[in-house]
């Protein structure tokens, strides 16, 4: 190994270590900022080391790519409101996966021209196919997730007839095309006199073969490399024109073929369609799972790219991200007591209960309160817990909630937040929103930590959450979509106040008996508006 190459590889190793340390830093809010910085330094090192590669002869396209991508990325990173984090993450996810798919495609096109690598090995072509398949799914899947989260497309599941069969068919087509691509697709170009084969055996291109090329309009330069690909098969690479041909001797004639990436690119197209079809049947509240899974895919695609290039830092970084994505996917599924297959394919999110069932549960039992009444209730409380859900993000109520929290604390009330793992549209969504509004992170309690404290809680304020506080989840009835899902046990508190626009069901499409419970009060209205009116009422009392 030349010295320069060894040096680059050592820098890649350093980058990989920095990525691991960076992720390790994220295990505590105090060390997290430094962790992110370490990871970005690792990335910078890897980029700078790569830029010294002697194969790079022109920096214009690289600079153009950096300017376009960098501007877009930083604009998004600085301008996007915290409530839009899930869709921004979806965009970045998709871009990463798509970049991997395009990059392995480019690497394959280069290899077809006889560049960089000695021969196209099975490792090379099969990992290129895998990376492109996963990257293509990540690209379009994330695009659909973005459209759903941004509200440019319905958040409801779109259930196409026969969708499972279509998905399986598309996957089989992808695998078939990949196999074709790995075996090598070499479309026939033209035939030539057999005599020229003698020249090929000797490692030179005979004049009559050169003439045959010329007749086809394929001018060969003087710089030709002939390589034997086994008996009666050769590869001619034109080093000047960057073109490669496969010559076969069979049935008494010499046939000239061109190796083509066509099956590869068709496969990328089919994978992109598959990505769309996989995400459209998934409803809005299941987005935390989808985003985690797409995150894992973008990591795996990068790792696959690393397999193609035999580049260790790509493999390490990609596998780390893949692991992160799969861990989060598993955690999100567990928090809903559903299998990944159920989230991905069952199309949960269609209305289940009928109006009649809802009326049955709610009839005459739902008590509505005014902000003044609730303010009085909270003023006399010792401990208040706020349980936020996606409705908080929708109405951008985080600042109003923080004002209310401060006011309560100034009156000696202890206030904490109960965060369900799947509250919101991505893992940890509620934490980021509340942190943005200056809520100290010590107050943001995980479900397992806060559930035992509800019995000692005077008032729970449920804001924009529904399914994650629905006591029906405790039932074992399999007809209930959320059966067995761990919930925030808010109904155990002395009183529960639910801020909600109406009694409309949540994402799971079922009525919530909590709203009709004896200790429950409904505060009908917009989350932000009601939080502000509660603060105003508290100030007056």
């Amino acid at each position, binding site marked *: 190994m030349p010295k320069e190459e060894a040096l680059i590889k050592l820098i890649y190793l350093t980058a990989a270590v920095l990525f691991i340390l960076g992720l390790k830093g994220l*295990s505590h809010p105090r060390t997290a900022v430094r962790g992110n910085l370490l990871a970005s330094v690792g990335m910078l090192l890897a980029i700078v080391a790569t830029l010294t590669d002697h194969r790079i002869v022109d920096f214009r396209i690289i600079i153009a790519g950096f300017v376009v991508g960098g501007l877009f990325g930083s604009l998004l990173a600085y301008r996007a409101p915290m409530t839009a984090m899930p869709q921004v993450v979806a965009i970045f996810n998709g*871009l990463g996966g798509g970049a991997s798919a395009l990059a392995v495609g*480019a690497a394959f096109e280069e290899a077809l021209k006889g560049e960089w690598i000695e021969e196209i090995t099975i490792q090379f072509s099969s990992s290129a196919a895998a990376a492109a398949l996963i990257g293509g799914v990540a690209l379009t899947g994330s695009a659909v997730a973005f459209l759903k989260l941004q509200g440019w497309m319905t958040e409801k599941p779109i259930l196409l007839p026969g969708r499972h069969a279509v998905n399986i068919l598309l996957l089989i087509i992808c695998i078939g095309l990949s196999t074709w691509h790995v075996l090598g697709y070499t479309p026939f170009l033209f035939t030539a006199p057999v005599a020229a084969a003698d020249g090929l055996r000797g490692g030179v291109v005979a004049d009559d073969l050169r003439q045959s090329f010329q007749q086809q309009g394929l001018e060969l330069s003087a710089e030709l490399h002939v390589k034997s690909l086994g008996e009666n098969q050769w590869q001619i690479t034109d080093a000047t024109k960057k073109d490669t041909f496969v010559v076969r001797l069979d049935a008494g004639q010499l046939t000239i073929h061109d190796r083509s990436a066509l099956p590869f690119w068709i496969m990328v197209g089919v994978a992109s369609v598959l990505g769309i079809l996989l995400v459209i049947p998934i409803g809005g509240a299941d987005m935390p799972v989808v985003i985690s899974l797409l995150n894992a895919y973008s990591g795996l695609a990068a790792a696959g790219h690393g397999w193609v290039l035999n580049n260790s830092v790509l493999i390490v970084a990609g596998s780390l991200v893949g692991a992160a994505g799969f861990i989060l996917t598993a955690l999100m599924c567990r928090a809903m007591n559903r299998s990944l297959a159920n989230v991905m394919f069952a199309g949960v999110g269609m209305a289940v209960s009928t109006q009649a069932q809802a009326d049955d549960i709610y009839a005459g039992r739902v008590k509505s309160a005014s902000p003044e009444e609730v303010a009085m209730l909270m003023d006399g409380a010792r401990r208040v817990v706020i349980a936020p859900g996606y409705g908080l993000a929708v109405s951008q109520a985080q600042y109003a909630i923080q004002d209310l929290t401060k006011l309560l604390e100034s009156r000696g009330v202890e206030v904490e937040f109960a965060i369900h793992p799947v509250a919101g549209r991505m893992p940890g969504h509620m934490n980021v929103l509340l942190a943005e509004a200056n809520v100290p992170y010590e107050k943001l309690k995980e479900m397992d930590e806060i559930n035992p404290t509800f019995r000692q809680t005077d008032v729970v304020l449920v804001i924009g959450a529904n399914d994650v506080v629905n006591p029906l989840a405790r039932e074992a009835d399999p007809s209930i979509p959320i059966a067995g899902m761990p919930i925030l046990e808010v109904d155990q508190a002395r009183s529960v106040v639910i801020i909600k626009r109406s009694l409309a069901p949540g994402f799971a499409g079922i009525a919530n008996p909590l709203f009709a419970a004896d200790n429950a009060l409904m505060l009908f209205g917009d989350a932000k508006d009601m939080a502000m009116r509660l603060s105003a009422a508290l100030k007056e009392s």
Partner: protein
Amino acid sequence: MEQFVAALTIFVLAIFVGFEVISKVPPLLHTPLMSGANAISGITLVGTLITSGARLTTLTEILGFFAVAMAAANVIGGFLMTHRMLGMFHSK
């Protein structure tokens, strides 16, 4: 084959390290974890640079440009956004 085994070794070990490190991240930081990990997956950028700078064919240049732009957006945007997000988490 030798290369394949070496790559597989790195791959498997990295996945184990990933599981160990990431399972210690508290739910509080799951969003920054996701966006930070996302930025790291933009490492694919490293593989796209050579393609874009080698001036091989128009096709690889076009592919290279889009790959660099997409991966650069992922890396730069991802790290900046994670930084912005983490800056909001503060103690009492």
